[in-house]
C-alpha cells in the first residue's frame, strides 16, 4: 500500500508535469517519468512482461522518437501559447477534473474490488502466459488489432499525400496571400 501511494504520487507528478511544463522537451521528459511509474505498477501487479514491454517500447522507442521530433521542430522557436477564447476555461476544467478524479479515488479506496484477489492463473504476466492467451483463445482480438494498425498505416499515406494540383481556388488564393 505504501509502495502504491508513493508510485501513485510519482505518476501523478509526471502526468501533471506533462501538461504544465512550458517547454515541449520537459513535457516529454515528464511523460517518461509517468511511463516508468506505470511500469513499476505493472511489476507490483506481477505483470512482468507488460512492465518490460512498457519500458522498452514506450520509454525506449516511442519517447526517443518524440524527443527527436520535439527537438527538430521546436529548435529556436519561442514557446508563446495562444490566448484562450473563453476566459476561465482552464480553472473551471481543472476544478471539475479534480472533483471527478477525487470522487473516483474516494470510491476506489473505500470500496476496493475484491474479485481480483482470487489468485493468479498459471504463467500470469510472463511472456509465455501472454503468448498463450494472445495466440490461443484471444487470437481473434489480435487479428482485429492488426487490422487496426493496417488502417493506421493507410491513414498515414492518406494524410501525407501531396496536395492535388488542381486545388480549390480559395485555398490557392490564401497561399498566394501568405
Amino acid at each position, binding site marked *: 500500500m505504501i509502495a502504491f501511494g508513493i508510485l501513485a504520487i510519482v505518476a501523478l507528478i509526471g502526468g501533471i508535469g506533462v501538461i504544465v511544463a512550458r517547454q515541449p522537451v520537459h513535457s516529454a521528459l515528464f511523460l517518461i517519468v509517468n511511463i516508468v511509474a506505470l511500469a513499476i505498477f505493472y511489476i507490483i501487479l506481477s505483470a512482468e512482461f507488460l512492465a518490460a514491454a512498457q519500458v522498452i517500447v514506450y520509454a525506449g522507442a516511442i519517447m526517443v522518437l518524440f524527443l527527436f521530433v520535439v527537438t527538430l521542430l521546436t529548435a529556436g522557436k519561442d514557446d508563446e501559447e495562444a490566448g484562450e477564447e473563453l476566459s476561465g476555461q482552464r480553472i473551471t476544467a481543472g476544478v471539475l477534473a479534480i472533483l471527478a478524479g477525487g470522487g473516483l479515488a474516494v470510491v476506489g479506496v473505500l470500496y476496493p*474490488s475484491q474479485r481480483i484477489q482470487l489468485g493468479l492463473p498459471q504463467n500470469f504476466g510472463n511472456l509465455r502466459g501472454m503468448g498463450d492467451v494472445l495466440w490461443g483463445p484471444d487470437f481473434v482480438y489480435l487479428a*482485429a488489432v492488426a*487490422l*487496426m494498425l493496417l*488502417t493506421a498505416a*493507410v*491513414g498515414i499515406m*492518406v*494524410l501525407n*499525400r501531396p496536395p492535388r494540383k488542381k486545388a480549390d481556388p480559395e485555398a490557392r488564393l490564401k497561399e498566394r496571400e501568405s
Partner: protein
Amino acid sequence: MAFALWPEYTIVLGIFATMLAIMIGSRERTIVGYWLALAALVASAIVTTVDWSSRVLPVSLFHQGVTVDAFSLVVDGLVLLAAVGALLIGWNDRRYGTDFPILLLVALLGMMVLGMANNFIVLFLGIELLSLPLYILAASHSPGVSGEAGLKYLLLGAFSSGILLFGLALLYGSSGTMVFTQLDPATMILPLAGAGLALTVVGLVFKLGIVPFHMWVPDVYEGSPMPVTTYMAFGTKVGAAAILLRFLFFGFSLSVDWWGPAIGYLAVLTMIVGNLLALAQKDLKRLLAYSGIANAGYVLVGIASHNMSGARALLFYLLVYGLAILAAFAILTFVAGERDSVSLNDLTGLVYRSPWLAAFLTIAMLSLAGIPLTGGFVGKFYLLQAAIYAGQPGLAIGLVVGAMVGLAAYVRPLQRAFAKPSGSESIEPIRWPIAGAIVLIVCVAGTIGLGVYPGPVVHIVNHSAAFYWLK
C-alpha cells in the same frame, strides 16, 4: 471456423482485395477499388440475409465474446445500407482519393463488431475499429477545414475512448467478469460499479452524439467530405445505438433503475436541445448534424423505455432515419457540385432549377420531421408507443415537443427551395451522377414505402428484437 461470422469475413476479404487492387493497379484507375468494395458489400448483404432467414438460435463465439443473433444481423444490414449509400454518393470522386473505399470498409467492420459484441474487449475493439478510419476520412479532403474537423474528432474521440476504458476497468474490478451476460448486478460492489457504468455510458453516448456530449458533432460534420458525413450520420449512430442497447439490456437488465432514468433525461434533453439548435443553422450540413443529434435522442427513447417495443422501435427508427438522411445528403451532394458545403441560400429557387430534387428534398425533410405517409411518422409512432407502454409519459411528451420544434427546423430549407429566385443565384441545371441518383431514388421510395406499408419491415424488427427477458 465460425460460419455465423461470414458477413464479417466477407468484409475483411473485401478490405484486403481492395487494398491489393489499389496497390497493384495504376494510379489513374481508381474505380477498381470502388467496384471491389461494392462487390464485398453486396456479397456481405447476401450472406447476412441468408444467415438471418436461416438462423433459429443465437450463437455465442470466442468464449462468449460475440453473440450472433437476429438483432446483430439486422444491425449488420443497417450498417451495410449506410456503407453502400455513402460509397455510391462518393462514387469515384477524385476529391476523396483512392483510399476512401478501404477506410469505409474498415469502419463498417467496426460497426458490425459493435452489433454483436458481448464482452468489454470486443466492445472497445469495435469502437476503435469504427473510429480510426473515420478520423482519417474526416481529415482526408483538404488540409483546411477538413484537417480541423479530423483533429477535433481525433482528440475528443481519444478522450472519450479513455473515459470508456476507465469505466470498463471499474466495471471489471467490481464484477470480476468481462462478459455482458455474466454481469450480475446483485453481487457487484455498488459504488464502484455505479461509477464504472456511468463512465462507460458517457463514453458510448459521446459516439452517439447525445446532448451534453454533442459539441464535436456539427464541426466534424461540417468539415468532413459529404459522403463521410453521410456515413457518420447514419452508420456511426447505428453502431453506437446497437452497442448501447446490447450493453445495457444484456448486462444491466436486472437493474434498470441504475440507468433507466439517466438515459430518459438525456433523451428528452437531446430531443429538445438538438431540434432547437437546428432551428438557427444556416449551413445545411450543420442543420443535418443537429438533426442527427436530435434523432439520436429519439433513438435513446427506445433504450430508455426498456421493453421489447422499445428495442423494436429503435431498430425501425434507425432504418427510416437512415433512409431520410441518405436521401437528404444525396441531394446536398448534387446541389453542392464541385464545392463541399451548401447554405440555405444555395437552395433558393431549387424547385425552378430541378423540380424533382425539390420534391425529393421535401419527402426527406418531412420524413425527418415525422409527417404521416412517410417512414419518419411510423418510426416516431412506434417510439411513442414504446414510451407509453413503459409507463413513462415524460419521454412521450419530450418526443412530441422535440418533433414539433423539429418540424419548424425542417420546413426552413423547404421554404427556401420553393421560394421565387431573386436572380442572384446560379441557374445552371444540376447534374445527377448515376450512382447518387440510385441512392436517392431508392431511399425516397423506401421512405414512402415504409410510411404507407411498414408491415414486412415491422415483422423483421419484431422478430429480431425479441430478447426473451424483455416484456
